[in-house]
């Protein structure tokens, strides 16, 4: 018995020693930690992001990249724990995550306190005075909304009916619409809500159709956006239907079928790099991502682009930071934060990044393309 116990103790000590060795900062290694929502309600975002992280470079600026990926199930509390673990135990140089807004805010707070550069993969509001360490990869909603509203104005849309998720995504778009309506001469004539798990949106759609809007805006995401699209066409709505970039995916076309034809959507450029002019800085990284991703994981999507782009940015800023300090040191992390602002026109699959001390999204119109669906395929609206 005693013998058995001492064996166990020895094993424990050995395990501890091993784990201790692994957390010591190694020379010539860039440690990148990520917390993603690979399970839970945001799994549709987290899984492609995790997939994309298997395709990113294994070496940057002569440094070997060591990647640690954790799951936070979309829960801000878990995301906070993960971020603390990555920073305190694994001593990461850079932290990525999380997949949706609430856990991304949580990671950002931890990263700011620990002074670790952070790449948000979900759109999040940046608090004034806390900008230094966080940059956000996805496009800000106003940028995408402007694309849709602009298209409406050009096509003489005056009245709009809205149907959106009964969550923060729906609220966010309603807010965008109200803020921009006057500028584009648009009027909201119906505002309906539904939930992703609803088995029917007949009631909402009947009300929309009865209000006779010039166009309908669907503020939903993933395949959930297909339900109103299909029901609107089923109930004989003939006007244009606008979808947000949350809806752009092959699955949307698969689920909506014929009803998807002619839809107008704002999208990140990585959904269709093939259609872009060669001069676009988003074309080469987008093509590289799509060509690496599709054979291994199936149809392209917008979420894989965000972690991929974080590495496109790292490829630019790490060599600059290396001139000042060694990985694993606070000075190196400061140098990365500096380089994020000094490096300009960083081309990536989802946009061209020009971060400044206050603009932590750093993107412009080049981070947006307008898409429609023709014969079951996405097509660029010129």
């Amino acid at each position, binding site marked *: 018995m005693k013998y058995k116990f001492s064996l166990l103790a020895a094993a424990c000590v050995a395990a501890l020693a091993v784990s201790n060795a692994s957390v010591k900062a190694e020379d010539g290694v860039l440690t990148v930690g990520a917390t993603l929502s690979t399970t839970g309600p945001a799994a549709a975002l987290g899984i492609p992001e995790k997939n994309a992280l298997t395709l990113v470079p294994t070496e940057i600026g002569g440094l070997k990249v060591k990647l640690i990926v954790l799951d936070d199930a979309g829960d801000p509390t878990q995301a906070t724990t993960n971020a603390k673990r990555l920073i305190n135990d694994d001593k990461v140089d850079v932290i990525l995550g999380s997949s949706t807004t609430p856990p991304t805010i949580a990671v950002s707070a931890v990263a700011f306190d620990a002074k670790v550069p952070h790449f948000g993969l979900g759109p999040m509001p940046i608090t004034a005075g806390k900008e230094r360490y966080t940059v956000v990869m996805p496009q800000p909603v106003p940028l995408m909304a402007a694309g849709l509203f602009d298209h409406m104005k050009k096509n003489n849309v005056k009245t709009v009916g809205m149907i959106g998720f*009964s969550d923060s995504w729906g609220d966010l778009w309603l807010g965008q619409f109200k803020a921009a309506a006057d500028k584009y001469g648009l009027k909201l004539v119906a505002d309906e809500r539904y939930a992703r798990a609803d088995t029917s949106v007949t009631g909402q759609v*009947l009300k929309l159709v009865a209000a006779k809007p010039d166009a309908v805006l669907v503020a939903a995401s993933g395949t959930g956006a297909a339900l109103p699209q299909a029901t609107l066409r089923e109930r004989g709505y003939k006007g244009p239907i606008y979808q947000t970039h949350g809806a752009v995916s092959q699955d949307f076309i698969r689920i909506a079928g014929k009803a998807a034809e002619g839809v107008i959507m704002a999208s990140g450029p990585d959904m269709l790099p093939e259609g872009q002019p060669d001069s676009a800085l988003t074309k080469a990284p987008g093509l590289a991502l799509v060509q690496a991703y599709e054979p291994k994981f199936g149809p392209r999507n917008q979420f894989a682009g965000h972690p991929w782009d974080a590495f496109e940015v790292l490829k630019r800023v790490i060599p600059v930071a290396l001139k000042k300090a060694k990985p694993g040191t606070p000075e190196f992390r400061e140098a990365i934060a500096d380089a994020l602002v000094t490096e300009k026109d960083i081309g990536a699959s989802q946009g061209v990044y020009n971060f400044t001390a206050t603009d932590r999204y750093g993107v412009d119109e080049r981070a947006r393309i307008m898409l429609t669906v023709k014969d079951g395929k996405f097509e660029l609206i010129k």
Partner: protein
Amino acid sequence: MDLTILLFLVQDGVTNGAIYALLGFALVLVFAVTRIIFIPQGEFVAYGALTYAMLQAGHVPGTAYLLPIFALIALLFDLYAERSRITGGFLIRQGIEKIVVPLALLFAARELAGVSTIASLVLTVAIVSALGPHLYRIAFQPLADRSVLVLLIAAVGTHLALTGLGLVFFGAEGLRADALTDFSVDLGPLPVSGQNIAVYAATLLLIAGLYWFFERTVQGKALRATAVNRLGARLVGIRTKGTGKVALALAAGIGAVSGVLLAPMTTIYYDTGFVIGLKGFVAAIIGGLASYPLTAAAAITVGLIESFSSFFASDYKEVIVFTLLIPVLLVRSFTGKHTEDED
């Protein structure tokens, strides 16, 4: 709001209500027989819908692989429990039930995926309802004599486990199946699709079927006897252990049928089942977890209220539906007679 809209809303409400009724029946059935408040019923619906959609698209669904795994675990449980009195006949019965049948279904799924709608339909119901008894054996049979609360906690655990497995097997994105038929007739301004008719027919058939089963067959009477008095039922020679498995097989079968009916009407995700299940649950509670006709009426009411509130106040739809429970529970707790549970 004109007559056409009214008709559409009524149709929508009745169709959804019929699906909730099916779920409500399964909940009442399982509770009556096993005293389990069966939270994972919604998962059977999602599994049914996703299995059907995948088979129809020509893929082998994850549930076809899950079934032999569950069966194997159940087999190990049974072998351990009966280890001192294993006979040849026992082994043969167990072998057929837990090895041959699951593997045959897996083989059939691999061969028949994408062949025809009917084959997909039959296979879906067979695979998902076969999951039921094994699930009971693994998660609930060891706890069968414990209090309702313990069983409820086990049910919540099972729900979480099944949702997780659903994510693994079906992925995070939703699936939608093709309609059973393109048939459609116009009743005045209202088009009635073959899918709608199938939903109504399935619900009516199941009500009739359940009535016949519980009133006219020995198995059904055995289930009812167990529900009324477990000990008494055992004294007159009813195998109460077997009844739980039968109840769960029926519940899973009903879930699979509802899933198949629902899959062409909306997008189903691995986690959609829970919310649909909750609405069936509201109906079952209004029915006192005991009465099938009351459950059916309540389910249709839930469907109608949902459909009308999605027209008039879509932001508050879920709030309105679930708030229904409060007055019902109040009335029930003031008027109903209390039978103190053992816990």
